[in-house]
């Protein structure tokens, strides 16, 4: 089970969402995709997209304006 990291710090709409999707497409079942970023709406929308695809959002945290979202494929 690999862990794939995606850095979207300072990226704006739609890049964080798109990069998350790219990583999820490349991931195998069971892999964890971890995305970090600063774009406020993406913090809500990435988990929304993951759930729309039937994937599990393991955690969402934020510290000093940087959020971290973990998704299990």
């Amino acid at each position, binding site marked *: 089970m690999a862990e794939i990291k995606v850095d979207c710090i300072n990226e*704006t*709409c*739609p890049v964080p969402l798109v990069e998350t*999707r*790219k990583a999820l497409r490349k991931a*195998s079942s069971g892999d964890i995709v971890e995305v970090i970023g600063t774009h406020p709406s993406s913090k809500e929308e990435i988990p929304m*997209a993951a759930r*729309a*695809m039937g994937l599990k959002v393991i955690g969402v945290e934020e510290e000093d304006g940087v959020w971290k979202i973990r998704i299990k494929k």
Partner: protein
Amino acid sequence: MEDKNKEIKEITMHNKATLIVHSGDMDKLYSALIVGTGALAMGMEVSMYFTFWGLERLKKGALEKGPLSRMNMLGLGKWMVKQKMRKANVASLERLLEDFVELGGKILACDMTMEIMGIKKEDLRDDLISEYCAVGTYIKEAKESDITLFI
């Protein structure tokens, strides 16, 4: 793994967006490509039909060449918007288009526009275009879509 993929595929199959890109204006192309890549990122299947002025932008080297739809002011307005976009770190149209294709989005070119505007296949970025077609294909795809937009 197969079950999960099947599940994703099933969700995707019932979720489709079909966009007509009629405008060749820079700002409208942004709207179209952001909605298109966004829909792909949300797990949808997406087709974008390029027609009229939109299709002009698929000519080689023409993607970023469109004016602003309002307040272009002979290019000054566009220049100002581009500066602001650079500051906000907005992706280029080129990058969005590449992302769109990488995420499996389909680009369709209107063959009637090609005929009336004298655009040949070799003038267009053929490597990105999945199909050359007409209104029938659009209607067929739009009928299966949950979202359809005319931009």
